[in-house]
């Protein structure tokens, strides 16, 4: 019976957050520290022909300049550190360091650039037209295995689509399973809709400031990063040094949502500048810079054709997606979206075609539920449209299409480990009072109408093959070394408790080591992709099991018998036959040090990562070391699934709505840390509400200039935009591939809330399908009055 798991606790880093003692990247100071500022591109695509920095460098207090030739060139379409050919407004060209920030800034302003504007593009569909503009000199589309290509569709392709529908010429990627034609033939209802899902900026509260200095041949980098060990090799590569020569410090991260999942080019600039000027360098990043350099979720222009049987079962699905990928490598949202459709709606036959098209807008990257959350926003209201036409309840039509444990995933139709979406729908409908609320849907009070919505979402939620590391010190304390990172969800701590649980520790006698690569941190997955709960509980379990075996082996050695004769309790290892024969953990740790070898980390397993080996070497001989690679079995993709239920009141005259109630239900395996899960359910919902009906990503199509740079323009939700109380629940069914039954959940909690709100807005308008997210007030007023919308169909970056 679990003593620690499933119970609330106070994570060790929370007091630092409420007292201001928690140190983020901009909070570090170093003697002799100078400030660095960026000169960024004023144009969406340009070539810098000449830089005249003489006046800047002559300014008192300026200590150095960093130019593109001073930093490693990034291959292909990877994000640059600095470049003479910027591909978006705000891309860094050069940096200047000075003794204070004002001087650095004024020096930047004194640089004269000879810069030539080049062809640019802010709409993927325009780029695909014959003769359309390319975002890069080498092409306009990223094709898997082929890389950057020029892809133009024909006039016939465009004409064949029909008015307002998405054309589809040669795709960049495609897959299918089942007999699509037969599926549509068997369908009594076929819906065919084109849609746009907007790009959305991450807008993490902490801009990606970084500070770096060099000491003793090593580079010390304070960075804003979700991940710890996993980001280190990439950061070292950007700086141009070996991983063991980088001390990477990321103890706190002020929000990332995918945008700080790994190393990113900006964090290398202070390191390069510091090496060049010989002083510590702090580079503060402004909110406007964070907008352009802080990544964004790619928007979709898409089309989906769904065939339904009379009972609501989806017989066929034909999905096409054009992804706005930004100018660089971007992220594979489009394929992830298609795979999500295959799992959440389990169509009996499906075809997916997609293409990732480059635009001269901010570089795209993963954002909470990348691909899945966009596609759920587009598809969930369409499921409701089908339900309406088939006379089915929105929950019922979702139940009939929901995945089971045997359902298959993606184009490869691979196995999954567990799926409790149906249970989440049932539990949520019951708890929310869905039937009663649905019965009053459509009730009018003046210009206000009540409506309900249910939404679903998915993200894969678990990895394996990483290393765990624990140490029992001679004083008997357990030290858990975790390299996962600290995004703010406290999952680094809840998963560390798995090691304490295995060894039956009092949590008060455990200490977590993290946040600084010099603290002996193992090779772990990054804190992204909703994977931490599943992945890190496995690694900590593996390390603790190794420690447990060593404890028993030491006891057998010291007290006789076999290791199997022993068990642990009260931080001691004892003989089951004669519990008085026992060694405390402190005694066992001292014996481990005397024994050396594998017991004290002087020898390490063959299959661990070199980073873990270095971590073990740094603590070898100081206690009993438990270290192991997670080789536990895993059969299939681990799905995190969620369902959201919402009731709103919409004012059809103003387009404003109020969320009356929200319930999020998680399928995350067994619950590890209830309050933290509750915060994730609610926080995900807040972000989802923003994505569905508020957040803006605007680009001027004529000049390629961003129009929603600041927070007040981008409109992330505030206290007043969301309910002050929201309900949560969890299915709480064990994931069989995890030793403590858990899997991740963070991402779909956003998508299900976004989808639920979109469905409710449609419900309030008699089932109107908007073909576009976000749904903003003027769109609602137009729809309510039967007026045409202000945007062109399939136009992007409009609101």
């Amino acid at each position, binding site marked *: 019976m679990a003593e620690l798991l499933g119970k609330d606790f106070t994570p060790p880093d929370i007091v630092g957050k409420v007292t201001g003692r928690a140190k983020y990247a901009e909070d570090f100071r170093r003697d002799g520290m100078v400030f660095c500022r960026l000169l960024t591109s004023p144009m969406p695509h340009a070539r810098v022909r000449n830089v005249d920095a003489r006046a800047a460098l002559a300014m008192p207090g300026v200590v150095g300049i960093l130019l593109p030739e001073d930093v490693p060139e990034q291959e292909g379409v990877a994000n640059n550190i600095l470049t003479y050919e910027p591909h978006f407004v705000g891309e860094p060209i050069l940096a200047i360091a000075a003794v204070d920030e004002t001087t650095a800034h004024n020096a930047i302003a004194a640089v004269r650039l000879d810069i030539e504007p080049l062809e640019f593009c802010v709409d993927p569909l325009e780029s695909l037209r014959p003769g359309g503009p390319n975002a890069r000199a080498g092409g306009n589309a990223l094709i898997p295995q082929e890389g950057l290509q020029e892809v133009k569709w024909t006039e016939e392709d465009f004409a064949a689509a029909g008015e307002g529908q998405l054309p589809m010429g040669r795709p960049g990627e495609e897959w299918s399973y089942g007999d699509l034609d037969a599926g549509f033939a068997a369908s009594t209802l076929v819906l065919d809709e084109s849609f746009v899902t907007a790009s959305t900026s991450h807008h993490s509260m902490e801009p990606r400031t970084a500070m770096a200095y060099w000491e003793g041949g090593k580079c010390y980098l304070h960075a804003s990063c979700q991940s710890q060990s996993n980001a280190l090799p990439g950061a070292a590569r950007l700086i141009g040094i070996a991983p063991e020569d980088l001390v990477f410090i990321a103890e706190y991260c002020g929000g990332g949502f995918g945008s700080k999942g790994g190393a990113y080019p900006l964090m290398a600039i202070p390191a390069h500048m510091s090496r060049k000027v010989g002083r510590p360098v702090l580079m503060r990043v402004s909110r406007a810079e964070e907008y352009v350099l802080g990544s964004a979720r790619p928007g979709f222009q898409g089309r989906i054709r769904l065939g339904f049987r009379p009972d609501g079962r989806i017989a066929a699905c034909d999905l096409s997606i054009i992804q706005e990928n930004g100018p660089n490598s971007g992220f594979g949202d489009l394929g992830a979206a298609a795979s999500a459709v295959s799992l959440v709606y389990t169509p009996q036959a499906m075809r997916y075609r997609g293409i990732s098209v480059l635009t001269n807008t901010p570089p795209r990257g993963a954002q909470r539920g990348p691909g899945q959350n966009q596609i759920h926003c587009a598809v969930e209201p369409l499921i409701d449209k089908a339900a309406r036409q088939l006379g089915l309840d929105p929950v019922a039509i979702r139940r009939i299409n929901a995945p089971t444990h045997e359902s298959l995933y993606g184009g490869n139709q691979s196995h999954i480990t567990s799926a409790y979406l149906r249970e989440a729908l049932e539990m949520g409908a019951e708890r929310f009072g869905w039937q009663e609320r649905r019965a009053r849907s459509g009730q009018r009070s003046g210009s206000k109408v009540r409506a309900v919505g249910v939404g679903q979402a998915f993200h894969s939620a678990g990895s394996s093959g990483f290393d765990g590391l624990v140490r029992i010190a001679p004083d008997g304390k357990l030290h858990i070394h975790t390299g996962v990172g600290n995004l703010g969800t406290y999952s680094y701590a809840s998963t560390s408790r798995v090691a304490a649980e295995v060894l039956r520790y009092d949590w008060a006698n455990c200490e977590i080591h993290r946040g600084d690569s010099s603290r002996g941190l193992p090779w772990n997955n990054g804190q992204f992709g909703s994977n931490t709960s599943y992945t890190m509980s496995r690694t900590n379990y593996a390390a603790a099991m190794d420690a447990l075996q060593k404890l028993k082996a030491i006891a057998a050695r010291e007290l006789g018998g076999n290791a199997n004769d022993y068990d642990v309790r009260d931080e001691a290892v004892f003989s089951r036959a004669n519990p008085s024969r026992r060694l405390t953990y402190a005694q066992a740790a001292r014996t481990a040090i005397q024994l050396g070898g594998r017991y004290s980390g002087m020898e390490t397993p063959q299959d661990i990562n070199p980073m873990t080996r270095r971590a073990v070497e740094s603590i070898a001989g100081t206690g009993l070391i438990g270290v192991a690679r997670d080789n536990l079995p895993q059969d299939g993709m681990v799905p995190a699934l969620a369902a959201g239920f919402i009731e709103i009141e919409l004012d059809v005259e103003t387009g404003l709505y109020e969320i009356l109630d929200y319930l999020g239900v998680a399928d995350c395996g067994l619950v590890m840390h209830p309050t933290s899960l509750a*915060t994730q359910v609610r926080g995900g919902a807040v972000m989802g509400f923003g994505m569905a009906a508020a957040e803006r990503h605007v680009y001027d199509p004529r000049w390629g200039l961003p129009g929603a740079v600041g927070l007040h323009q981008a409109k992330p939700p505030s206290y007043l935009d969301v309910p002050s109380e929201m309900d949560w629940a969890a299915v709480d069914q064990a994931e069989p591939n995890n030793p403590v039954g858990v899997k991740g959940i963070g991402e779909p909690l956003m998508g299900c809330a976004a989808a639920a709100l979109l469905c409710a807005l449609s419900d309030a308008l008699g089932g109107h399908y908007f073909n576009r997210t976000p749904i903003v007030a003027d769109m609602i007023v137009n729809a309510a009055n039967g007026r045409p919308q202000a945007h062109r169909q399939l136009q992007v970056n409009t609101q």
Partner: protein
Amino acid sequence: MSEWPPTEVGGDTRASSTISEDAPWALPMVSAIPAAQPSPSWSRRDFIKGIIASGVTVSGLSYFGSGCSGALPAQTVGGVERLLSLSVNGQLRRVDVLPAETLAMTLRYKLGLTGTKLGCDRAECGACTVLIDGVTHYSCSTLTHRVRDREITTIEGLEGPNGELHPVQQAFVDELSPQCGFCTPGQVMSAVALLRRNPNPTREEAREALAGNLCRCGAYHNYLNGVMRAAQSLGAREA
């Protein structure tokens, strides 16, 4: 791309593609801040222009800036005294402040009080919230010179003499209010100010009071739980 670059804006940019001040793509990010040197011509208008144009705050002297060395003028040319006494967290702190320096920069870079965070530096997010005479202010948009006779309280000034947490801080811990934690100091300060003027707020009043503090993690529910719990514990303490 026939209309690019624009001939109707910024003169004949086709002939010379050097960035023009008038061109539409001359973005704020590369605009100059008016030199942060004390001068008779320095005006409030210049400061606001600088703030608007730059996207960064005029930092004045840096942590180890050039202005820290050498003799400090008691009076600048423009008649602004630079060496100030600020009352911060009950202590009088002597500090050299440039005319256009914001309180957030003074706190963070002169006084070592890094608990006050800069999320946007333009009064949008509330991460930099501090109390000035008990009232919440965005320190990123407050000139230090304007608060020299006022009582400034930052997140570092809330704990008791023996390091015990303020009831709001303790309630935020108990309710697991923060997620990433970057907005937390600002949320704490807004909650403290609320409970000082209204010790028994409704949840709706708390929501209004904290509405100037953005949280991208969306932990609003848990912060409000924290405020309500703190109100209870403060009430119990006084009862």
